[in-house]
């Protein structure tokens, strides 16, 4: 079943001024419940504008966003309700931490949602557990945490609202490899348990290849491709022509294929490449 749909969605900044700029240009797509959607495109391709339309932070210039079949702007006064259903984690979310303790910070959303104290307590603890924050840390000031912990505390604050659709704008930017792997695996663990829909914006093709069911490729406001990672990353030339690249390992295998070797064009991980190369070497009697 489709949970969120875009119909001829467009947005123009500075409409009817000399600075008019079309940021999102006639995008239509349908996303199923429980899918993980990777979103790639270089800076200025309209990714952020697009995701901000999904929860009504930006009102489309034309077109519609349908959440469970209903236009989110059908009752403009109730747009706030949409934001409880579609949660947004911005870039560098740790800049948005504000309260005295991590616990209070995470509880801000559920409290505004109007939950009772015991429900709030339950939600906060569950959200903290999902992102791997210990009870000890909940009592601390968010500003005393390490960079990776702050990031996870901020994400817990959005998860605590229990959104059906979670939008993450570059959640791993600036983290070290260890922090990045930990955060990604926690988000995916949360996804498997909660079975919600996730939009994942990233510059890391390797991360997208690891987690996404389908990948949206945006360029100059338009949706250039929308398909499985295997199919999208097999089009290395097209991606490179719009300033993107494929994961390093995919590039290696695609080049081998171009040179006439019998290997798959849809390799996304080192493990897959290893299996593929070993079977090729064996077939050729080199191993």
């Amino acid at each position, binding site marked *: 079943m489709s949970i969120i749909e875009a119909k001829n969605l467009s947005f123009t900044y500075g409409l009817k001024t000399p600075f008019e700029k079309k940021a999102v240009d006639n995008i239509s797509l349908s996303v199923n419940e429980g899918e993980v959607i990777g979103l790639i495109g*270089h*800076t*200025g391709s309209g990714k952020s504008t697009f995701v901000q339309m999904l929860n009504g932070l930006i009102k489309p210039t034309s077109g519609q966003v349908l959440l469970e079949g209903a236009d989110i702007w059908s009752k403009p006064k109730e747009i706030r309700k949409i934001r409880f259903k579609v949660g947004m984690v911005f870039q560098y979310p740790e800049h948005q931490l504000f309260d005295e303790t991590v616990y209070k910070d995470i509880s801000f959303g559920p409290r505004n949602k109007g939950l009772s104290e015991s429900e709030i307590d339950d939600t906060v603890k569950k959200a903290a557990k999902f992102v791997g924050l210990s009870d000890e840390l909940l009592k601390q000031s968010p500003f005393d945490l*390490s*960079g*990776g912990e702050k990031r996870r505390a901020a994400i817990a604050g959005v998860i605590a609202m229990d959104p059906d659709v979670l939008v993450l704008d570059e959640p791993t*930017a*600036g*983290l*070290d*490899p*260890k*922090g990045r*792997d930990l955060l990604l695996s926690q988000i995916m663990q949360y996804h498997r348990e909660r079975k919600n829909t996730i939009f994942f914006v990233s*510059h890391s093709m*390797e991360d997208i290849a690891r987690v996404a069911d389908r990948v949206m490729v945006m360029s100059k406001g338009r949706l250039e491709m929308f398909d499985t990672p295997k199919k999208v990353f097999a089009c290395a030339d097209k991606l490179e022509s719009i*300033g*993107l*690249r494929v*994961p*390093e*390992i995919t*590039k*290696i295998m695609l*080049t*081998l294929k171009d*040179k006439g*070797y019998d290997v798959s064009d849809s390799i996304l991980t*080192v493990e897959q*490449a*290893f299996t593929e*190369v*070993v079977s*090729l*070497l064996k077939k*050729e009697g*080199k*191993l």
Partner: protein
Amino acid sequence: MSFISASSVKYRYEDSEKNALNGVTLKVNKGEFVALLGHNGCGKSTMAKTLNALIIPDEGMIYVDGMDTADDEVTYEIRRNVGLVLQNPDNQLVASIIEEDVAFGPENLGVEPGEIRKRVDTALKTVGMYDYRTHAPHKLSGGQKQRVAIAGILAMQPSCVVFDEPTAMLDPNGREEVMRTIKTLKKKGITIVLITHYMDEAVLADRVIVMEKGEILTQGEPEKVFSQVNLLKKHSLDVPQSTELAYKLIGAGLRFSKMPLNVQECIELLEGALS
């Protein structure tokens, strides 16, 4: 003689129970390009700050171009000589016009106006931002802002630039712009210390130094360091995917003459194995 020479450097932050630097001995030659790797909290950034006397070691000594960083008399000379570029481009630009921003450093050093003009123009040309000299910085992309920040440092004519994760907040295009600029500086003979989490950037260096818990874990040419796949993985560090694939194939019984560090080298080795 080494341009940077650190011997048994120890440093502990106030209120901390552990040494951020726990006996680092390091030499960097003039004109060398070294990459510092390690995860957050391993002491890389602290090390960077010791190089231009923002942090003075509790124990041990650091000499930069023959000057002791603990000597107050030479602090300004060291800071002019060793420029620091940080992660967030927005935090490093101070003026409302790009060329004024670049002139900020030399103005504060008391350089003659005519000379400032020359230095600003040369610096902006080096980073490829001369055409934007009269623009406002806030309208630039992240990569362009970082290049302006680099120009601001070049205008002080340093012999060394320390980069602390200069590309962490940039998109792939911005990263490439900054890396291209770093290579230009290297060609001009400037000593470069690059702190990064990106292995594809580290492989461009002459030498890679991996830090862990305030100490140097391993160091050497990129090929040598990245071939220690097990050690790096054990410390949760990345290796380039090309290297990882080759490493696994060696485990399966293949022989390679060297370890590949990028796509091109990996393909050449694979073709060799298949022919």
